[in-house]
């Protein structure tokens, strides 16, 4: 805990001297999962005090590579060199001892512990009996030196996604790690928050305080903050070099090869009749507080209504309510003027489909196979089921195979548990399930979280095509660019209410941003310019 007790950064005490930014090399890393070669002889060199970006499609093996470096997985072949010497890292604890820390792609904070407890328990050298008064004082002093803050005394479960991400990064800094591995650290941050975090880390790396290896899908961040790039493709190193020498086109070609990205279809005109109507919806949180109130919206066939807003303003509750996962306290949903009750039968009858955020958690059963997960909407109907109860695995796997091919889901086989797919591929598998049939109403939430640019483009095309085929689409997204690109109309949600509605052609970023910021919600100035 030298960082917490050091009096001033300018004059580090003697014992902190060896804890300077190290260089790291990974040589010939190979990792095989069952029959799938996730990493094939990949090498990577990160010089001391630099920021290195690791790029690659979903499922390219980026997370696997860094998890091997961290000792979370054991590589089948390959070595990790720290400052030029081979270092055996057998567990994350060894990595912590060697000064390597990582922010995982999926949060590794403990939801029921407070931020302060999370910070303390993460330390390998935490005292057996914790003197909270002293620890809190140290943490407060540490926080005071940080450019962004996170409340320390409430359970992490109550923090917003952005705050959790910041806390993960603060955790590494508090641990005084010298080699930081960040697996998609900005996927839940707004562009401004991302700049704040990456700007800080970049500046500290330049001062030689640590070295950063970061995985991201955002070229903007690579160009702005990374010194060097390594690109993986299907488990192999596809190329790399100094960021200055690579254009975005170069990087994307390295990522996906010569595959062409599907052209976005032209927009068909918006339909006439209202298909989906939300009439005065209210719902509560489990703790009794209001989640959202007075939500009234009409969506026409062939129209995309985008719901913008800073995360935590009731959007996810609204998506849950529409998916039948949260009861409405008041109000009604109408589909083609008929009242809609969220039952499985009705979802089928009215052709309502959806892609909630975090699909692995909200729309999949992690331990069931990809084929079974893809069959969730159809397993009780012919041809998979006969007489309504007899399931035939043949047609189920047949259908799964077909959709896996059509939606290019990368999976070792249809029988792999879906939790073993990379994040992007889980998303595709669920989208394949939800979009493959006739769709009248589609509710999607943050569909492109954590996807590589090719998948983003693919999925946005799919959504637009569903719209062009006449579906009424409600697109809830924290990415304003996505809304401006896809939506016909935009509605802004702030503090659980709809604060603003306008056709996309008649509004702009700034106006939307102002309404997103609502009534002075401090961290909400996200809608501004890039």
């Amino acid at each position, binding site marked *: 805990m030298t960082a917490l007790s050091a009096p001033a950064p300018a004059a580090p005490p003697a014992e902190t001297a060896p804890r300077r930014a190290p260089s790291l090399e990974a040589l010939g890393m190979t990792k095989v999962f069952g029959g799938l070669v996730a990493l094939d002889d990949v090498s990577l060199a990160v010089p001391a005090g630099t920021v290195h970006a690791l790029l690659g499609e979903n499922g390219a093996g980026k997370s696997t590579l860094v998890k091997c470096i961290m000792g979370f997985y054991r590589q089948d072949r390959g070595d990790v060199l720290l400052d030029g010497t081979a270092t055996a890292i057998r567990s*994350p604890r060894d990595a912590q001892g060697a000064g390597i820390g990582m922010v995982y792609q999926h949060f590794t904070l403990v939801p029921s512990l407070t931020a302060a407890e999370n910070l303390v328990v993460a330390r390998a050298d935490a005292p*057996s009996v914790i003197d909270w008064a002293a620890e809190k004082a140290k943490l407060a002093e540490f926080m005071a030196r940080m450019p962004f803050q996170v409340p320390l005394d409430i359970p992490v479960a109550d923090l917003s996604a952005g705050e959790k991400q910041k806390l993960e990064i603060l955790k590494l800094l508090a641990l005084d790690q010298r080699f930081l591995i960040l697996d998609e650290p900005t996927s839940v941050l707004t562009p401004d928050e991302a700049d704040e975090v990456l700007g800080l880390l970049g500046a500290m790396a330049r001062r030689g305080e640590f070295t950063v290896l970061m995985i991201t899908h955002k070229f903007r961040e690579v160009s702005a903050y990374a010194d060097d790039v390594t690109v993986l493709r299907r488990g192999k190193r596809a190329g790399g070099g100094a960021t200055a020498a690579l254009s975005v086109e170069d990087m994307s070609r390295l990522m996906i090869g010569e595959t062409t990205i599907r052209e976005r279809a032209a927009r068909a005109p918006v339909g006439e009749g209202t298909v989906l109507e939300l009439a005065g919806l209210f719902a509560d949180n*489990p703790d*009794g507080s209001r989640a959202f109130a007075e939500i009234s919206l009409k969506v026409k066939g062939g129209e995309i209504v985008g719901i913008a807003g800073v995360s935590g303003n009731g959007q996810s509750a609204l998506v849950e309510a529409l998916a039948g996962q949260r009861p409405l306290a008041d109000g009604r949903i109408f589909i083609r003027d008929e009242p809609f009750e969220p039952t499985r039968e009705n979802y089928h009858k009215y052709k309502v489909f959806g892609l909630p955020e975090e699909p692995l958690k909200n729309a999949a059963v992690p331990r069931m196979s990809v084929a079974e997960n893809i069959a969730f909407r159809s397993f009780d109907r012919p041809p998979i089921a006969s007489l309504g109860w007899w399931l035939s695995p043949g047609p189920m796997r047949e259908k799964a195979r077909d959709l896996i091919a059509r939606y290019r889901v990368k999976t070792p086989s249809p029988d792999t548990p879906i939790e073993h797919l990379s994040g992007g591929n889980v998303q595709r598998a669920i989208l394949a399930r939800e979009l493959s049939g006739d769709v009248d109403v589609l509710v999607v939430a943050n569909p492109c979280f954590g996807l590589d640019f090719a998948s983003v483009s693919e999925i946005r095309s799919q959504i637009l095509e569903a719209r062009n085929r006449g579906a009424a689409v409600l697109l809830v997204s924290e990415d304003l660019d996505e809304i401006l690109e896809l939506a016909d109309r935009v509605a802004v949600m702030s503090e659980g209410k709809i604060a603003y509605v306008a056709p996309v052609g008649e509004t702009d970023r700034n106006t939307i941003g102002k309404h997103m910021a609502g009534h002075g919600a401090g961290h909400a100035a996200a809608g501004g310019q890039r």
Partner: protein
Amino acid sequence: MDAFADTALFTLLVAMLGGAIRVSTPFMFVALGECLTEKSGRINLGLEGNLVLGAMIAYAISFHTGSPWTGVLAAGLSGLFLGAIHGYVCKLPRVNDIAVGIAMMAFGTGLAFYLGKPYIQPSAPRLEAIPLGEWTGIPSLAQALAINPLFFVGIALAVGMSWFFRNTRMGLVVRTTGDSAPAAKAMGVSVDLVRFLATAAGGFLAGVGGSFLSLSYPGSWNEGLSSGQGLMAVALVIFARWDPIRCVWAALLFGAAGAIGPAMQAIGVTQGFYFFNAAPYILTLLIMASSARSRFSGRDAPGELSIVK
């Protein structure tokens, strides 16, 4: 005061108070043990087996050594043994903790009945109650306030556990393991080891709870000693929302409910005797039904429990 002391209501209340204190003690130990195990992310439904085996072992060891406290310790160790088996088996791949728990319950009670046959007749030294009510001068109250020392051990344990979960590194690690296994793994903590230790320690506590059944007044070992307290304690932990201090209150409540039947008998109400005896079970049902709908229970549940996932 004296006039009130003669009323039926007073008799009933005193009988319930004494009953609550007496009956709650085994509940308390089993619930605290279960609480510890569940906080680490596992459910051990087998604690009924620990309770019964603990009761038998405590009695036998007390009989042989003449020291009831040695019996208590041995009961704890027998519980530790059963808990360790549960903890070990559960870390094998594709093993379900609930199923193992039920098997362990059958194993523990079966073992106790098998080993316990020779101890049904002999009489072993008991744990002496601490007379705290002599000063009142009211015999019924004095009897109710003759409290077994294990009751106080249980309360101290609850306070200690509550402190342990908040203020020690091990406590935080147990909570981490119970709430998010990936987080624990990312910290380099061995999830299986933590759960193994927590299950074994929880088993120890349940075993100690068992010793109370056979070594407290009137003190005997027989096969009908436990009436499902070990199972009800699981419900009690849910009701207490995984908080050791609340476990004590919940145990007292269950204890009082269990004392209603005998207390009614004491004041001469014989109508509905079976109904009053069923009070703790009815309470268990009501609690399970209402806490399933409670707004908070889901929030406080350790995220790794197989029933929550």
